[in-house]
C-alpha cells in the first residue's frame, strides 16, 4: 500500500514539476518566437518593396484557381483562403507597391514565396523563395539568382508561362511551373482586389 502510494506521489510530482517548468519555458520563449517571425516577415517585405519605409497589412480573399491541364487536382474542393497582402509606404505615406505571399505545390512539397509589385509602373520588383522542399540541385534552383532575377522588372500583364517569357530550369519543369502558375493567378487576384482602378 505505502509502496503504491509512493509510486503515485512520485509520478504526480514529476508530472507537475515538468508541467510547471515547461509553462515557464514556453512563456519565456514565446516573446522571442513571435518577435522573430515578425522581424523576418518585415525584412522580406521591405526587401521586395524598394523605397518602402513601412507597410500595412491588407487581407485578401482568394480562391486558388485550378489549372485546366492539371486533372489530378480537379477533385479537390476549392478552398477559400485568406492571403495577406502588404502595402508598402514610403516616408511620406505614399504607396510604393504591394507585396504578397504565394503558396503553390511543387514537386516535393509546398513552395512558399513572396513577390513585390511596383504599383507605379505595374512591374514586378522581385520574388524571394521563403520555403520549398524541391530536389536539391534541381528544383532547388528556383531559389537561386538566375531563375529568380528574370522576374525582376517584368510587367504584371506578362503571360508568365515557362518556355514563353520565362526560362524554366532544365530537369525541374514542375518546380518552375509551380512558381509561374502561382505567380500568375495570385497577381491577377491581388490586382483585382487592391490594384488602383482606372
Amino acid at each position, binding site marked *: 500500500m505505502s509502496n503504491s502510494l509512493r509510486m503515485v506521489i512520485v509520478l504526480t510530482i514529476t508530472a507537475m514539476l515538468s*508541467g510547471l517548468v*515547461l509553462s515557464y519555458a514556453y512563456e519565456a520563449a514565446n516573446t522571442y518566437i513571435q518577435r522573430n517571425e515578425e522581424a523576418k516577415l518585415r525584412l522580406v517585405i521591405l526587401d521586395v518593396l524598394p523605397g518602402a519605409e513601412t507597410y500595412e497589412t491588407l487581407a485578401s480573399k482568394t480562391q486558388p484557381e485550378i489549372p485546366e491541364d492539371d486533372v489530378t487536382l480537379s*477533385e479537390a474542393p476549392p478552398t477559400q483562403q485568406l492571403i495577406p497582402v502588404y502595402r508598402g509606404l514610403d516616408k511620406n505615406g505614399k504607396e510604393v507597391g504591394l507585396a504578397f505571399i504565394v503558396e503553390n505545390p511543387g514537386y*516535393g512539397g509546398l513552395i512558399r514565396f513572396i513577390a513585390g509589385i511596383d504599383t507605379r509602373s505595374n512591374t514586378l520588383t522581385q520574388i524571394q523563395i521563403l520555403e520549398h522542399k524541391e530536389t536539391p540541385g534541381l528544383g532547388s534552383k528556383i531559389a537561386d539568382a538566375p531563375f529568380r532575377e528574370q522576374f525582376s522588372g517584368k510587367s504584371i500583364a506578362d503571360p508568365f508561362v515557362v518556355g514563353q517569357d520565362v526560362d524554366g530550369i532544365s530537369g525541374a519543369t514542375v518546380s518552375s511551373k509551380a512558381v509561374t502558375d502561382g505567380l500568375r493567378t495570385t497577381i491577377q487576384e491581388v490586382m483585382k482586389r487592391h490594384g488602383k482602378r482606372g
Partner: protein
Amino acid sequence: MSTLFFIFIGALLVNNFVLVRFLGICPFLGVSRQLETAVGMGMAVTFVMTLSGIVTWVLQHYVLSPFGLAFLQTLLFILVIASLVQFVELFLRKMVPVLYRALGIFLPLITTNCAILGLALLVAQREYDLIQTVIFAVGAGLGFTLALVIMAGIREEMQFAPIPESLQGAGIALITAGLISIAFSGFAGLVPM
C-alpha cells in the same frame, strides 16, 4: 477521395518512412535479418502506429489545441505512446493470444521506435483530419513493412556473399539501404504533394 489515395501512396512509397524520411532506422537495421521476423515487426508497427495516430489526433484536437498547450505535445505524445504499447501488450495477451504470439516480442521495442512518435508529430504538423490520419498511418506502417521485407530478403541472400570484413554487419546493411533508397527515389513526383 483522390486526396486520400495520394496520402496513402505518399506515405507508402514516395516519402517512405524508412528510406526517405529516416524514421524507424533502428528496427530497420536490427530486425531485418530474417524475412519472417521482418513481417512480424512490420505488422506490429503498423498496428500500433494506426492506434497511436488516432489517439494522439484526438488529444491534439480536444486537449492540446483548444487549451493552447502545444508546448506539451512531445511530453504528452510519448507518454501516451508508451502507455498504449503496454496496454496493447496486456490486451493481446489476454484476449487474442494468437496475435500476441506473433507480435508480442516486438511490442516492447516499439516505444522507442521514432516512426511512431514521428507519425504523431507529422499528423499534427499537417493538420490532417481523422480519416486522413488513419490512411496516413496505415500507409506509413505498410511502407515500413515493405522496406523491412525488401531489406530482409536481400540480407538473407547476402549471408553467403564475400563481404569485406570491415563492412560486415551494419556497414553493408547501410550501403544496401542506400541502394534501395535510390530505387525508391524513382517514385518521387508520382503524386502531387
